[in-house]
């Protein structure tokens, strides 16, 4: 299955930077959907919990929600949208999981957490 892996960039606390990063993800997502290609967003686990500031949290949590919506739309067309959230020490493993999700195609709208930092924390 074809598709792409979208790595989220760090942003600061400035709204313009947050919007720019979300817009970059939107542009990539729309192009991907128009080509019936699957997509995997890669974010940091800490950002789902808001541990690295509001800017990064808005981007990570916003993308997770957008991915779930994209997944609903992709399900009708045969492509998927998923999210990989990684602990900093597991960054290289995240890449592998992202490609596994693209290659497999049977998982859709899912959040895969790489590492153990999420255990005992809130569900995203």
């Amino acid at each position: 299955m074809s598709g792409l892996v979208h790595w989220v960039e760090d942003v600061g606390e400035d709204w313009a930077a947050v919007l720019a990063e979300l817009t970059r993800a939107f542009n990539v997502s729309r192009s991907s959907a128009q080509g019936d290609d699957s997509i995997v967003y890669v974010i940091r686990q800490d950002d789902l919990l808001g541990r690295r500031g509001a800017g990064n949290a808005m981007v990570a949590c916003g993308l997770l929600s957008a991915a779930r919506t994209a997944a609903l739309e992709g399900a009708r067309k045969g492509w998927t949208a998923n999210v990989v959230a990684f602990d900093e020490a597991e960054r290289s493993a995240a890449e592998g999981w992202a490609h596994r999700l693209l290659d497999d195609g049977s998982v859709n709208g899912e959040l895969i957490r790489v590492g153990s930092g999420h255990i005992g924390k809130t569900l995203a």
Partner: protein
Amino acid sequence: MNGTIVVTGAARGIGRAIAEKMASTGPLTVIGVDIAPELALSESIIPVQVDLTSIEGPGLIRKAVDASGSPLVGLVNNAGITRDARLINLTDEDFAAVLEINLGAAYRLTMELAPLMSDGGSIVNIASRAYLGNFGQFNYSMSKGGVVGMTRAMALSLAPHVRVNAVAPGLISSEMSMAIPEDIREKMVDSIPLDRMGTPDEIANTVWWLLTPLSSYITGEVIVVGGGRSLS
């Protein structure tokens, strides 16, 4: 509870119900914010007409808080819009408009007002059940997911002095939901275990609880008020 509470998007629907609820339940000063030129609220609510996405918007609300003469004890970020389309058809303009109002305005206003919040204050952000995903709402879902992220981050950064939580309404009887075609709306209601749309008052009741000391040990949480729709 005594002090000032700011509610955005107060002219109609959920925001109006929240502002009216707060105004009716205690010695509070309620500032109702909206872009609508006619803010027909109760006499006990101070209307502030402002474009929340403008550069001067947050500062104008801060001035209204200062003028109220009482400490800021609550902020409800409720203002929001929809511009629905499937992702493949979603325009740059509709994407940006929803993100700017639903997320950017809430973030900038919170950054402006958080330093004014008194110890024990409470911020409630109105997210949406759509943060779990909703067909045709890539922009709206993203904006509301962003609100959830903002809620968690600010719950950490403003603790222990101010609590920050989110309420995620499901299908609520309001202008926004009435814009959904009737046949689609009926299908949506059919998938709600409680078998009906919610009311703005039911959201207002939850927000009220989160603003009061009754919820004093809760922060960083998202409460879905959706009639069980997330299960069906």
